[in-house]
């Protein structure tokens, strides 16, 4: 399960390391954008441990949202061209037998590449 963590001024604290130590759960960092004042981190967390990890982050002052649908496609706009397929670093998109785009959203790390590559403005990364 993907989880988005927002950290504010306290980014210098090793929040992720602390949560891993506290919970003893294996967490994978998919992506992190951190600047002087705040940061957004996307994590991959085992589905059955989500709640514990979320609570642990919150205890350390971070806010957490679970990314149920990290990437959304507007079915009315999508023409199944496939331009999104080969730009995605984690292979979220593929063709099914009838050349229709299938999306495995659980893999998405919200890098945003497909959003700009889609000629039909059909894709959006969701922050909640």
């Amino acid at each position, binding site marked *: 399960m993907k989880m988005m963590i927002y950290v504010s001024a306290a980014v210098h604290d090793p929040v992720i390391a602390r949560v891993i130590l506290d919970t003893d759960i294996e967490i994978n960092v998919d992506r992190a954008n951190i600047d002087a004042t705040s940061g957004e981190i996307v994590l991959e967390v085992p589905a059955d441990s989500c709640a514990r990890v979320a609570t642990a982050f919150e205890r350390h002052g971070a806010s957490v949202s679970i990314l149920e649908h990290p990437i959304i496609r507007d079915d009315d706009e999508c*023409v*199944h*061209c*496939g*331009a*999104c*397929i*080969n*730009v995605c670093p984690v292979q979220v998109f593929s*063709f099914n037998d*009838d*050349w*229709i785009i299938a999306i495995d959203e659980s893999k998405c790390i919200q890098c945003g*590449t497909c959003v*700009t*590559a889609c*000629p*039909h*403005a059909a894709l959006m990364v969701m922050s909640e």
Partner: protein
Amino acid sequence: MTAKTILEINERIRDGSACVLTAEEMTEYIREHGAGKAAQEVDVVTTGTFGAMCSSGVFLNFGHSDPPIRMQRVHLNGVEAYSGIAAVDAYLGATQPSDSDESYGGGHVIEDLIAGREIDVHAESSGTDCYPRKILDTSITIDDLNQAVMLNPRNAYQRYAAATNSTKRTLYTYMGTLLPGFGNVAYSGAGVLSPIFNDPEFRTIGIGTRIFLGGAKGHVIGSGTQHDPDNNFGTLMVSGNLKEMDTRYMRGAIFRGYGISMYVGIGIPIPILNEEIAAATGISDAEIKTNVLDYGVSGRPTMREVTYEDLKSGIVDINGKEVRTSPLSSFHIARTIADELKQWIKDGEFFVSGPAERLQRHGTVKPMREVHGQLLVRDAMSERVHTVSVHAEIKEAAELIIEGKFNHLPVLSEDGALVGIVTSWDISKAVARGDTGTVRSAMTERVVTSIPDEFIEIAVRKMERHKISALPVIDPNRKVIGMVTSGDLNKLLVRR
């Protein structure tokens, strides 16, 4: 040899007994039964394609206002249409961008018209005795227009070269996002369903051929611009009534960093009049070849030849690396179009037509005639370059810059090769900090460079992209042989 006539086929379409296959089905059929049998049994083969076709647009007639205006400039939802024709006629091109919104353009206005949405119209004129009005603002839908006729100068490219990128940076092109280091291959075209590949000799596709265009009935009105049948790059000029079209088959599109385009859906029926025509429709993806071009290098060298079968497999090998491919055109919708056209014919709603005149079967494309020759960096660079040794003191560099009244100083290693660059700004910073070390501590090591034979447009792009104003010009041993500044280049470009 069996031969049928258009008339006989249309008779069968009328009584519902015509045998219609899509080009995909026909390929299978011929593989099993051969072209002779196919020519006897099959009446029509339907093709389809749906992809970005920039060379598209619509003629619009707005009707006259009261008092009347002779539109000299007209904007539709902020997108300019060409109005250098009669008073209230205009041609809206698919790639024309909006003046204010870079993600919207002609292709989107055309889609909005088809969808029946309200479109803002703004027109200007200098006013004449017979057309006194100077400004007009109104809002229309497609129903308010007298005519909305799609006329696309170049559509249905027989095939299209595929694109990849050898450089270290992502390229944003009309072939989509090309990832660095041969990160992907993008291709376009419907392969086995491609209209022209199923009739490459233009035996049935010609002027007047009735086709499926954007969900309506349209016509081929000639060979398209840049028609190049000698190299299997044939194109078609097509026309149809926008008022009858469907947004499922006509869509505005945007290629970030490139611009606006339009996805156009075309389906062409091929009447199977004889065995030769049948045999041509047996073509498969494995027989359709195209080249993969490197869009990162000027001149776009060919990396390799591929077939549409390779491209559609999702992976091709480039220089020993497995590279993922994906299309820009929609094979799913190309197939939907071939199916829908097949259904129209089976339902007796669409009759085939022979060409009133055949298209040129020979010919190729010439490049542009340029009377000024290509300007190269060598024409603009200055050969008197001041350089400084990497071991020199900052003070020495500062003096050179002050004396020479220039802003960029290439830094050389002992053997004279370029290793860095310092600008007057770098030096001022170092002096202000009280830095007394050598030039090495103040210089930028990653120098963007040029070579004497580079086109100046490319040098200008480099400077813009890196937000810099000068490039050292080097030889193959990294010896600095000149310096070129944005000022020099602009002067040269302006003079043309």
